[in-house]
């Protein structure tokens, strides 16, 4: 599933000559000729390594005892093209951060040939045999993002890292893709599919949920082995839980003090990843898929994990870890199945009608009190509505744009969810107000012309 991470030691500079992909942008219409220029100038991935030299990164490395951030394997795994399978990369290649090869594949074998006319005649399979990765479809793109933006067995953002200063990870592929400076021409690519934004959202959420469940599985497996061997371990892994369940100032203005109600039936116990619980519930509601007997749906899969994980969440014992493992594997299967079915559809339609969302909120009120759930709800509305005008550089060339009113309303809803200045948490967030504002958004019909 995960592409081979071995990368090209030549670095992005070998792609970015002026006559290849590093041409000037001005007055040029061939995106391919200045793809490198866009990446270098506008894409945050090109600065992934650079940030390791910033004061925040230096402090993180100091707090974690990692030595220098820009030399630490733990940091370089995602912030550069270095990975544990390679010899150390030369400094100039490290400096690329997340460069061309990170997504397009190790170019050692295809760098020469892809400049020649016969490249056009090679099939995708033939190209991939040389190490090239085809990124023309939504699904292949998503799988490039997940190892870093969710994490896996070899690289993860755990709570130790977050406490030291790393931002939390909360990935939603369609929104990230929209915000991302595009360095390719959309024609003939995923963008030309009529359901591009819907497909991006649905396949993105399915693949993300699968990766999230796999990471939970990896963490629980590790903890179970450590518990059995009576070794030090890190269970509960706090990064698996709602950040703001614990991280709120105590007092009447507390994030969870609203309405005097509890977020879950166990006072004092945090909820499992409300960001991904909402994703699972929304995916099932907006794009239902059939489930095989004995397999949970994505919506019940996330709830099953909550049930296994939340009561006595702080206890690490074999019985509990076994149950978490079981439920995590259940969600892996459910998400994979949902992804496969969705991918096989000719056209993915998302039902984000107010009736559907209202029914979802009514079905499990505690799950919709979280800021995370509100943001996920907004994101699926944006995916179904074409996205607000101001966000990102992507413009649909094939779709009816959402009406100005819809875009405006979505934009206001988005603004209402921003953290107050100087804070890094949703202080003052009110789910009641969000749901009132959500219902006021004039949605286009579920089925667009």
């Amino acid at each position: 599933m995960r592409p081979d991470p071995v990368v090209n030691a030549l670095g992005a500079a070998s792609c970015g000559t002026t006559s290849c992909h590093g041409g000037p942008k001005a007055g040029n219409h061939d995106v391919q000729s200045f793809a490198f220029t866009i990446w270098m100038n506008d894409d945050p991935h090109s600065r992934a390594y650079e940030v390791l030299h910033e004061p925040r990164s230096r402090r993180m490395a100091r707090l974690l005892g990692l030595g220098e951030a820009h030399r630490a394997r733990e940091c370089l795994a995602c912030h550069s093209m270095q990975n544990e399978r390679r010899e150390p990369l030369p400094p100039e290649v490290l400096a690329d951060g997340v460069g061309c090869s990170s997504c397009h594949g190790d170019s050692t074998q295809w760098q020469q040939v892809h400049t020649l006319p016969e490249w056009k005649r090679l099939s995708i399979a033939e190209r991939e045999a040389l190490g090239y990765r085809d990124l023309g479809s939504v699904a292949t793109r998503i799988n490039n993002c997940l190892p870093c933006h969710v994490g896996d067995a070899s690289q993860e953002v755990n709570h130790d890292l977050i406490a030291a200063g790393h931002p939390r990870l909360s990935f939603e592929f369609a929104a990230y893709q929209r915000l991302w400076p595009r360095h390719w021409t959309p024609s003939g690519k995923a963008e030309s599919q009529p359901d591009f934004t819907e497909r991006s959202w649905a396949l993105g959420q399915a693949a993300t949920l699968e990766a999230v469940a796999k990471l939970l599985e990896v963490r629980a497996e590790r903890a179970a082995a450590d518990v059995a061997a009576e070794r030090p371990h890190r269970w509960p892994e706090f990064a698996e839980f709602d950040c703001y369940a614990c991280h709120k100032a105590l007092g009447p203005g507390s994030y969870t003090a609203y309405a005097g109600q509890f977020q879950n039936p166990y006072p004092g116990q945090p909820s499992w990843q409300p960001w991904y619980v909402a994703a699972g519930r929304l995916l099932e509601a907006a794009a239902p898929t059939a489930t095989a007997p004995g397999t949970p749906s994505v919506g019940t899969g996330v709830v099953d994990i909550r049930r296994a994980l939340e009561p006595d969440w702080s206890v690490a014992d074999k019985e509990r870890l076994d149950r978490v493992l079981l439920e995590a594997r259940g969600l892996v299967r459910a998400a994979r199945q949902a992804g496969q079915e969705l991918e096989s559809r000719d056209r993915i339609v998302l039902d984000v009608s107010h009736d559907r969302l209202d029914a979802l909120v009514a079905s499990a009120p505690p799950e919709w009190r979280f800021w995370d759930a509100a943001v996920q709800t907004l994101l699926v509305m944006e995916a179904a509505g074409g996205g607000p005008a101001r966000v990102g550089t992507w413009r649909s060339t094939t779709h009816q744009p959402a009406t100005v009113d819809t875009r405006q309303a979505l934009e206001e809803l988005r603004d209402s969810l921003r953290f107050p200045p100087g804070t890094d948490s949703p202080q003052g967030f009110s789910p009641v107000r969000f749901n009132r504002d959500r219902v006021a958004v004039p949605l286009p019909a579920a089925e667009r012309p």
Partner: protein
Amino acid sequence: MFGNSFRRATLMSLRTQVVRLLAAASIVCLGMVGTGRAAPPGDEPLPRPAFRYTGADLCVKCHRSEQGEWCDVATTAAWRHDAHSRSHLALSSDNERTRAMEEALGIKAAATASCVACHTHPVDEPAVDEETNVLHGGISCETCHGAGSGYLDPHMQKSWRFLSSAEKEAFGMHDLRNPVAKARNCLSCHVGELATDRVITHEMYAAGHPPLPAFEMEAFGVGMGRHWKRVWEKSPQVQEQAAKAGYATEGASELDRSLVGSLVALQESVHLARDYAAAAELDAKDRPWPELAVYDCQACHHALAVPSWRQEAGYGQLVPGRPSLVRWPRRLAAVAFEQAGMSTDVDALLAPVVAVLNSRPFGPADGMRQATDAFDEQINHAIAALARRRRDDTLAARERVAIEQISAAGQNVGDFESARLLAWGLIHGLSSNGDWSGDVRARKIAELTAMLALEFPTPAYPSPPTQGKPFWQTSLAAAPATDIARVRAAFELPPAAATPAPGVIEIIPTPR
């Protein structure tokens, strides 16, 4: 002449009683050691408390006069003014908060051991009847001074005053002039004590129990309405008598008592974790490990901010992102360690505990108990060193050093609760020490009091009580609004005045 010999006679008789009581107690102890755990449960009669509670009604009969012969404080009036006298009212389901907690937890507060243990006066026969628990009242005389059946009559005799603390203890009266004993008494609720069920679990907090504010024994004692005089406030004759009777455990000054209190608070907070761990090792089903309430609330419960003060503050030896044990006593305790001539590096003293906390989130139960032993030895040494101090002519010089140490610690303080404890310590020092001008002292006291919301909303006796908010509410409201950089600056002291300006600045009037 007659009076003197009478006094000697009664004193003799009290002393004889003490010997008998101590002998009886040792027999009981021997019996318990002899039979030990081997005795099948039910064979032995349950050990009875040595004394029975007589009830505050009997105390009130004498301790109500404004200027009685035996007591020079209107004790009863002060106690009625004191929030402790109303602590049981919080158990009533008439309170909105109590009702919400009861619903969330599925309990009745007045019939729940942990609620009753701190909110009502203890009784001989533990009542499960919620009516009774609410009725038998708030924290009153005998909760702190000890069950009265043994000392009720003896302590009315004139010769009582000549008994030492240990002799009074044999009658069941606790020595609350001893700062260590008093601190343990207060902290059994204000930090918690598992053996007596005086604990607030994280579940109880999450259901709505207010957080326990950082506890500084002397300030809280004054804040609740002090109903006693210091030995050094009493008449010279009484002071002389007290010295003869061995009342020297009073401690040298408020500041010294405050420093001892911070050490005991630190120790009790570590003991709470240790005791939960021990209970878990015995597989006590009702006390699962980890109990989140033994950890530092602010370790997790801080609003996330940009830039992050939490990350700027660093984590010491702790792995970032792992909960630490309670931190608020540490800054003042570091000054106390310094005063005791020991290392001020509290984190280093707690290194074995930190190692346990690093080995997995919350630490394993089985490592916690052993890890606290070495720490206990160190902190007991410091407590003993400070408790030995006397109110002698080196007091002013010692106090001045301690004030300067607190001032230095305050200029590096990182959080609201630790700052409060330091500020209270500094205020105790400045209110009695004349090495700074009266202006400087009064200004610093006022500045820190306002900045850190140190004033108790219900003013202490004899001021009339007002309908103020509870203390925890004012502290919760003040914490997020407090600019820690300004607090640090407020801890700066100008150089001491060239000529001492002796005289006590009364934070709250001395009781009549």
